[in-house]
Structure formats: C-alpha cells, structure tokens
C-alpha cells in the first residue's frame, strides 16, 4: 500500500472509532463525567475541607489532576477493549484482516480511537472541575505529553486485553481487579510522602503513580517523583506493549484460526 492508501485506511478506522463512541455518548461520555463530579463534590468539597492542604495546595486542587488522569486512563482503556472485542465477537475484524491494511495501521487506528475518547472525557472532566476549583497551568507541554502518552499506553493495554478476551466478562476483569486498584493506589488521592518508607517504595512500582505525578506537575508544579523519570517509565511501557501487541497481531492470536 502507498503512504496515501495507508493514511486512508488509518483514517477509516479512526473515523469508525470516533463515530462509535459518539453514537453511544450516553454510555461513553456522560457516566465518567457524572462519576468525576461526584468525586469533586465528595472528596474535594465535603471531605477535602476537613483534610486540609496537601503538597502545598488545598485538597481539591491536589486531587483534581489525579482525577482527570483517572478519567483518561479508564476511558482510553475501556474504549479500545470494548470496541476491539466487539469487533472480534461480531466477526467484523475480518473486514480488516482480509484487506491489505497492515497490522500496525490497525493497531494505530484503535489506539487513536482510544486516545480520542480519553482526551474527550479528559476535556469534559477538566471543564467540570473548573466549577469546583481554580486550575493553573504550570507547564502546558508536559500536560499534553503526559496525557497523550498515558492515553496511548492504556489504549495498548485495552487492545491486549481484547485480544485475549473470550467473553464480555473478560473485558471487565482487568479494569476491575488491576486498573482500579492501581489507580486508587497511584497517588490520585494522596501524596506518597504521607506513606511509611516501605509503602512509599512499594508505590513506586506502580506505573500509574508516574503518570499522575507528571500530570500534577504540569498543572501544579509539584510531584512526588522526577518528571523525567516519569516520562522514561511511560515511554518504556509504551514500547513494550506496542511490541507485544504487534506480536499478537502478526501471529494472529485470538483473531486468526
């Protein structure tokens, strides 16, 4: 395929993916927005006022970046895992597999779809957060880079989950038992400086901690870890998961007999 043809194939998948989550916006865009508003009200306003400042900021300001990242993570992951699994389940993955569209373009198309939904929800949640607190921008480039890279990483995670999934139950196991606990323990609601040394060290094995802190640095200018190190960790995981996704696609795992 020529470069133009590859671009058309990629755009076809991207358009299809965006159309899909926009068509069912009541299921894809509204629920995470409502959930986050509840977090803002309960953790930010009601409980936050009693907690007091954290990391030099009031609790609401501290918690908002983490909650935005949480929305980006769960929605990027959720978009790709449900869309790709449905495509596999209905058999219309074959439409792409019989075509000359290269595997990396298929993967890039789904990742872009996941990023689009992650960013859409992230923007909605950010806008809603402005009703509860003031958000300054410490470093816009870091904000954009962290959101994009995190979204790509979790889109890849969703893709791998979808490849291995054999039922609709399988696409909710990882988000429920792995993603949610890691997000909650990834410094969304607290600074790891509050933890005893042992648990602080253990927390550093959680990749979500790096994303949340790098994003918080972009907004507030404070972070529990080095931002450069955070980018290195996210970049490393992207490379590993991309290579593994390509391996799965090339061998036909779960999609070719």
């Amino acid at each position: 395929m020529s470069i133009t043809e590859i671009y058309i194939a990629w755009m076809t998948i991207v358009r299809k993916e965006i159309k899909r989550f926009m068509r069912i916006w009541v299921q894809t865009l509204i629920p995470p927005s409502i959930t986050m508003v509840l977090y803002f009200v309960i953790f930010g306003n009601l409980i936050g006022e009693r907690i007091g400042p954290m990391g030099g900021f009031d609790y609401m300001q501290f918690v908002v970046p983490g909650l935005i990242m949480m929305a980006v993570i769960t929605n990027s992951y959720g978009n790709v895992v449900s869309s790709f699994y449905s495509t596999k389940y209905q058999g219309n993955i074959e439409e792409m597999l019989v075509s000359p569209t290269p595997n990396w373009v298929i993967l890039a198309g789904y990742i872009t779809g996941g990023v689009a939904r992650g960013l859409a929800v992230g923007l909605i949640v950010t806008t809603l957060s402005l009703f509860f607190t003031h958000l300054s921008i410490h470093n816009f480039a870091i904000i954009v880079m962290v959101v994009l890279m995190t979204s790509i990483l979790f889109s890849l995670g969703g893709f791998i989950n979808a490849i291995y999934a054999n039922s609709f139950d399988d696409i909710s196991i990882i988000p429920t038992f792995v993603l949610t606990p890691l997000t909650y323990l990834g410094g969304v609601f607290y600074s790891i400086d509050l933890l005893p040394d042992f648990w602080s060290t253990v927390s550093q094995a959680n990749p979500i901690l790096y994303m949340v802190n790098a994003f918080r640095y972009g907004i507030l200018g404070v972070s529990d870890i080095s931002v450069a190190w955070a980018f290195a960790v996210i970049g490393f995981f992207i490379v590993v998961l991309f290579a593994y996704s390509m391996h799965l696609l090339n061998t036909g795992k779960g999609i070719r007999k």
Partner: protein
Amino acid sequence: MSYALEIEQLYKTYDNGFTALQGISLAVQEGDFFALLGPNGAGKSTTLGVVSSLVNKSQGQVRVFGYDLDIDLSAAKQLMGIVPQEFNFNMFERVIDIVVQQAGYYGIPKVEAKQRATELLKQLGLWDQHKQAARTLSGGMKRRLMIARALVHRPKLLILDEPTAGVDIELRRSMWAFLEQINAQCTTIILTTHYLEEAESLCRNIAIIDHGKIVENTSMQSLLRQLNTETFILDLAEELHKLPESSDYRAHLLNPQQLQVTINRQQNLNKVFEDLSDMGVQVTSMRNKTNRLEELFIDLVQNNQTEITGA
C-alpha cells in the same frame, strides 16, 4: 496459462489436533467460475480461510495471481474479495457505511468509495435500504450486502462461501445472474455451495473435497459425463399404490401420482412404460431430474468414505 489461484500441498491442523486439510492441491484458471463442493466439515471453509488469510496454514503454498501469500500477502489481498459464510459486519452500522468503510481499508478515497458503494448497492437492489442499520435487513439482503462489500475494491478474484444459503429461489436466481454478469467481466469466481444445482448451472470447473482431501477436480462437463445413471420424474394420470418391480430400473413414489425412476444411461425407458402400461397406469408427462450432480456428489463422497474406513 495464468491462474487466479494455485494451492500446493496445503495442510492445516488446528490447535485441538483436528486435521482439516491433508495436502490439498488445486489450480483455478483466470476468468473461471469454479465450484468447491464437499459435505459439512470437509475442509471447504478452511481452504478459503487460508486463501483469505483468516486461517493460518500448517504447511503448503498458496498463490493468488502469482503472488505468494507468504511473500506478497498485501498484493494478493488487493486482488481478492471475500464473501464469508457467516454475516460478519457490524449490525449497528448503516448499509452504506459498511461498504464505504471496506473501501477505506483498501485505501480508496472516500468520495470514490461512496460512488462505488452507491453503484453496487443499486445493482444489488439495496439502495432503498442504504441508510438503514444492517441489523434491520432480511437474510437475503444481508447476503447481498456482503457481496457489495466484497466487490467495492473491484477484485479480480471473488471468493464466495455459500453465498446463497438461506436465500429464497427467486432471489437466488437473481444473485446467480449478477454473479454470471461479473464473471463475464473477467472476475474469477470461486464458490462453495450446498445447492448442487447452483454449481451445475453456474460453474465451469469443480473440485470436490472430503475429509480434507480433493476427491475430484475436473470440468463440470466431464464430471457429469461420469454419471452412469439418469433419473426421471413421471407424472401419472391416476394414483399408484403398488410400485412396478424390475431389475432394469429403480422406482419410488414421490407422491401417489409422481413416480421417480432411475435407470442406467445405456438402457432405454421402454421397459418402464411397458410395466406401467401393464399395470393400467397412464403417464401424462415426464422430465429429467435436474440435480444430477447431487447423485454423483453422493457417489464420490461415499466412495471416499469407504476408502477411509477400509470397508
């Protein structure tokens, strides 16, 4: 001679240990209308699955218009259109979107894809439904949608896996006419079907596959020449309650006023008429049973079964 499809020593063993293909070799000439027949589970869909790259082969070579699937898969895919057995489009998408999207996967720009989709949906009688979600279509319409989708990139080889399954006779015949038309425009067609009448009336060459092996691969004409018996259906003036008995032919009643008679091709029908006349039965009309291929198919598959079981 150039070939649209060449398969050499193709083997497929699934992960569960089931060997679906045991060294299949066949060649389909460019421009041919080719039938791949076989009982359920014989290996037809696996063969087509390997050709369309949806099934990973265990061993062997496949070439599409000379492009080896192991080397030039992308070029080979560009030349093929696939109509699978099961409906495999997104039921929630609109008919036109399904066809336009498929064109996108082949790198066809959107404007051109829309033109082609419109043209095909009109030809296949689906234009009135082009804005409907695919799930609202009838079974026959869904089959035609899969044909439109497979043709949108104008393939030189169209592979159809039971394209008329569950389609009523009238629609089936209109689909045959459409397929004959695109075959006349130099598109090579390979089809699998359970309707042997379909293969007999459409295809020029045929392969019969059973237990993962090709048991016959020849022209339709020479295959039908192998047929030793011929079957006739006689319409009777009055009801018949007792069958004529003779070693020269086999007779059985389709209903009290319709008698099916099978005779060897070397013999004539006089004996049948004599026997019926002796019984005081009048024959009002007579015709050939059309699906002669069915008898031959059953013979070939049964012979293969006998060889396998060693009986």
